């Protein structure tokens, strides 16, 4: 890593990233030329309206799609060039996801859902479910351990989703409109939880949103318009997790 201290190097490096989609005979350019660095422990908000390319950028950062040009490195690993299996192994170790629609597996209990990333890694059942219960207790769901998603409210489901994203202690957690389906009170709870985790475990959060309110939680706010970064600024009046 160029001999420099890996701690000082940005955890996410995006270089000259371009993404085009063929639609019929035409080509739509979703991302024009993105250059972005995110440091370890930073909460980075990707802000933009729908169609601005923020979701495409998230997909690129998380290795969900291959770029047309340029590359994405996470912890120095060029994830845009990994094979499907390498990518799966990389996700197990380094990435976590919080989804807008929670995406809990409906036939698994809260504990099983949270333990899922550890199961993919081959951690024995007793061990991974103990870890899951511990984390669920931390997010305030000690009384919902064996409940199925359909038996829980949206806020509760998203808390399970957060526990799942953090259980494997990933370097980077991607949160795609994590409060998009929630009311304002729950939104504050959820955001506080995410920020607390990120701070406690020194984790990097990539928060994608169209809501300016959310951007307030971030250290860095990246604003996208038409596939281009128009602003990349450090948030001066960052809201502390306990303010709310």
């Amino acid at each position: 890593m160029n001999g420099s201290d890996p701690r000082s190097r940005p955890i996410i490096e995006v270089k000259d990233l371009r993404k085009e989609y063929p639609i019929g005979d035409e080509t739509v350019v979703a991302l024009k030329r993105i250059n972005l660095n995110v440091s370890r422990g930073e909460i980075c908000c990707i802000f933009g309206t729908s169609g601005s390319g923020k979701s495409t950028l998230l997909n690129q950062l998380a290795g969900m799609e291959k770029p047309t040009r340029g590359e994405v490195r996470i912890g120095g690993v060029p994830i845009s060039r990994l094979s499907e299996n390498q990518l799966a192994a990389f996700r197990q170790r380094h990435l976590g996801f919080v989804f807008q629609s929670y995406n809990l597996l409906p036939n698994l209990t809260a504990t099983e859902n949270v333990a899922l990333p550890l199961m993919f890694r081959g951690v024995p059942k007793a061990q991974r479910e103990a870890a899951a219960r511990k984390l669920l207790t931390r997010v305030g769901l000690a009384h919902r351990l064996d409940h199925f998603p359909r038996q829980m409210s949206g806020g509760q489901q998203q808390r399970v989703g957060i526990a799942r994203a953090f259980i494997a202690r990933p370097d980077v957690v991607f949160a795609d409109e994590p409060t998009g389906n929630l009311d304002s009170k729950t939104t504050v709870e959820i955001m506080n939880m995410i920020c607390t985790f990120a701070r406690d475990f020194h984790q990097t959060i990539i928060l994608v949103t169209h809501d300016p309110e959310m951007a307030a939680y971030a250290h860095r706010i990246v604003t996208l318009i038409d596939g281009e970064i128009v602003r990349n600024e450090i948030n001066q009046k960052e809201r502390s997790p306990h303010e709310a």
Partner: protein
Amino acid sequence: MKRKDLLRVCLQNLTRRKSRTFLTVLGVLIGCCSIVIMVSLGIGMKEAQDKTLAEMGDLTIITVSAPQGGRGKVKLDDALLRRLKGIPGIAAFTPKRSLEVESISLVAGTGRRYIADWTSVVGVDTGALEQMGYHLTEGTLPKHDNEVLVGQYLAYSFKDTLRPEGHNMIDRWAGNFDDNGKPIDPPPPFFDPLKGPMTMEIETQNGKITLPITPVGAVKEDYSKGSETSEGIMLNMADLRKLMEKTQGGRKKATAYDSVMVKVKSIDQVESVERELKTMGYATESMESIRRPMEKEARQKQLMLGGLGAISLFVAALGITNTMIMSISERTREIGVMKSLGCYVTDIRIMFLSEAGAIGLIGGLIGCVISFVASVVINLVSLGPSVEHLLPAILGGEEVTRVSVIPPWLLLFAIVFSVFIGLGSGYYPANKAVRIPALEAIKTE
């Protein structure tokens, strides 16, 4: 992922849509049952056929004779016997020579009470008879000079001279017959030839020759071994030679034996041994010419029945594929989520393949149990439903002919086949599942 976890996930997925899983399993089950029962009927037919053939005679006996009109080098002599020892697949053999005389009679009983006016006398290698597959109904094999074996029904050739003409013989065929045309309950004969000595009386141009003989055993009738096993006398070749020297007054015949009977080790080798004997220049005869076409027909019937059964299992395979595709399209988002959480592609493939395989396995197992019960019921119906028929209906036996026969290999085959059908029909859906991108998790509906 750990194997245990994969198994757990597979079972969880199967149980979450219980009625769909049940119906798909039902399809496999019906397919499996129809294969097993159809094939078992075919095997039952074959078994019944084999029993019929075996009653007609020993299927592994080849009778070797000199070619017609062949006076050349191809002779039935001791040189041939030595060559037979070197042919693989031959278990035993015996030369045969019958006594050719114009008139022969057997006299037995006190005061010449029982007289048979004619019989066939055949010389064999009595030492080889046991290996040849001759069965004795009574007595032992001859060990001393002039000890002989008699055919099973020789007793019926004798007339009782103390009874009036027309009523002095017993008709062996007077009783009832079984399906194969054999008498079931022949009336008892007047006397037992094994009970005492006999005298053989032969008329020749040189006068009458008498030979005292001692029957020591009775041979079970077997037409593939010659009619003497029914109503003749078999004696050792050495005894026959002596007797022939007397009857022919020293004249010698060109050939040493009339025929040679060869016992082949197993039924599958009959054809090759027979071919080898033919290339040596001999004429051969065996039950093979009857058995082959019958076996071919039986195999065709079995294939046809098995094929009918297989069709329904293939239909079931379509059911599995359909179920799997349905469940994958329902779970598209879940698969995307699993991928984005770092589930390996191989694990996803295994998950879906094992689901399909499990449907096949469960259907196969239950299908086998059901077809086994069905087979026993079919047999019980045909044998007559009673408790003492239960065991023969399951295991079969010498004296019962089952309609439906399920050998263990058939069950094993059915289960393995069902699992393969499951895996095969899960292959395409599993590939489909594997190709679902992680991106599906992010799409919002």
